[in-house]
């Protein structure tokens, strides 16, 4: 089902923050906010849940650690033990640096990859454009347009009262 949106643009983040708060208190649904930089405090106002991506870091990091430890143990103790300077085959302390490096490598790569997957970012993707200049200096608030005409009119007036510079209606983000 095609959705339509009301796109209100602002020239400064403070007005936008107030607008998001007002819009939500007026029972309108905020689809998303587009901004040239992350606005602090917007997460709470939009009611966004804190991302769970750091769990990916922890879990993949633990897997990397376990893999590094097991693999070194397997190679140095089972597959071909080599006597180097009389050191024990299982020199666990000497395995720590590589365990650390592989933990960081696996968890770092996995976290960034998870971010790309979660936010659906991939090479060549066409970015949805609700308003021109959101990567430059425009702040845009995109509100789900209510079904009924009365409600839609009310939404527009709420946005106007919040100090929107411009309000447009868009079908999808193209």
């Amino acid at each position, binding site marked *: 089902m095609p959705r339509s949106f009301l796109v209100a643009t602002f020239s*400064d*983040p*403070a007005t936008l923050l107030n607008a998001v708060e007002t819009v939500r208190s007026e029972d309108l649904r905020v689809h*998303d*906010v*587009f*901004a*040239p*930089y*992350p*606005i602090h405090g*917007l*997460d709470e106002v939009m009611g*966004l849940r804190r*991302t769970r*991506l*750091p769990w990916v*870091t922890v879990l993949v990091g633990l897997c990397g650690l376990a893999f590094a430890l097991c693999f*070194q143990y397997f*190679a*140095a103790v089972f*597959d*071909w033990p*080599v006597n*180097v300077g009389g*050191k024990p085959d299982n*020199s666990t302390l*000497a*395995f720590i*640096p*590589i365990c*650390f*490096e*592989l933990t*960081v*490598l696996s968890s*770092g*790569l996995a*976290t*960034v990859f998870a*971010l*790309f997957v*979660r*936010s659906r*970012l*991939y*090479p*060549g*993707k*066409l*970015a*949805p*454009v609700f308003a*021109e*200049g*959101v*990567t*430059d*200096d425009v702040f845009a608030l995109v509100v789900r347009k209510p079904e009924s005409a009365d409600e839609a009119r009310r939404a527009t007036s709420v946005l106007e009262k919040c100090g929107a510079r411009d309000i447009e209606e868009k079908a999808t*983000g193209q």
Partner: protein
Amino acid sequence: MATTAFTHEDNVPLPSRARILLPTRLVDGNPTIGEVTDHISAPMEATPGRGWWLCFAVALLCLANLLFMVGYLFAKGIGIWGLNNTIGWAFDITNFVFWVGIGHAGTLISAVLLLFRQPWRTSINRSAEAMTIFAVMCAGLFPLIHMGRPWDAFFIFPYFPNQRGPLWVNFRSPLVWDVFAISTYFTISLVFWYLGMVPDLATLRDRFTSPIKKAIFRVLSLGWSGSHRTWARYEIVSLVMAGLATPLVLSVHSIVSMDFATSVIPGWHTTIFPPYFVAGAIYSGFGMVLTLLIITRETMNLQRYITLRHLDYMAKVTLLTGSIVGYAYATEFFAAWYGDNLYERFHFINRATGPYAFGFYIMVVCNVLTPQLLWSSKIRTNVPVLFIVSILVNIGMWFERFVIIVVSLHRTFLPASWSMFYPTIFDIGILVGSFGLFFTCFLLFIRFLPMIAMWEVKGVVGVEAHRDAVVGSHARREREEEREVAHA
């Protein structure tokens, strides 16, 4: 520096004027958010000036020299260098440690200063990270070409299927740790750098009109739309990456130092090496960041983003780490005297009075005395002097590694194996060539990619503008209250 402190309203009585002093600004000239985009994209839209072309031509020449000399090295073998049986590590490993050290400032600036919430990093972190990546590339080159058979370089990795039968690399060896540390550091730095650049690449995608550039930046920017849902995740992920990169930075040079410290050679076999090397790495890295940013701000007209305040802060870090390095030198001498080990003591006497004493004195002058100049705020904000200091730091740190490596090796336990190392034209040529590789990459970077993190600077500018508005309205309210009191 003129705008460090000013008041909004000059006719306010003195006490309340004191209350509305603004904190230090990080960007000069009060640009709007849109102007930030214009200013930082300008070098990528205009044809570069003569200064850039001149630097690029010299860098390209050095790079061509590197390619020629490395080609010749592969054909002839490492006998064309001045190495011998006693001094098996010389310029190559010196250059390796030198470049890895330089590669430490970038991630330090972007990760550690992010965790400490230092907003001044925003103007310099992108180029410092780029510097890290190019420096680590140069560093990686040297162990590779130092191998007699560089085409077998993949042997240093454990890989599947294992063609060496069940024999694996020796995981107890610091040289193997080094392979893992450097490659992890390179990969994570590269990912962190790219991740930080994605929003700016999207800005350029929306800005450029030429279809080719637009297409390239469309692929690179991954369809970034500026959605706050993405921004919220993005910020957390950046923080996580910074948290991962911080111990990584410290681990890399610690592991490099273990290449030396785990051996028994006098001058190498000391426990202070890891922290000493890390401090030296940060010191040399900041030296190189200063050199590069001074060149960049002058040739690309970015003085209002890379301000004297940034140079001042970086000079302070250089002073701190330089002093730690000086302290480490003193500790080494003290330990040699106090430890009463004959060989260790001989090594340090030889270091200061032997045939390579000149290297030791260059190192002391450049790394112990030079940074002490930075106590003066006049020197910290004098660009030409600071530039000279930064070059001296780089020279000093190269000689430090030369002293540690060559001087330690040339006279060890057996006088019968004592020897001297004299660099050949290929030793020097490849060192110069590595600078060519580094500067070619860096100059291309400042020409084609956003060398200042636009979105981060916009955040700083936005917060400053907001603060001004709030402080301004406070001032107005206070003045009104005072007027009311006066009328009453």
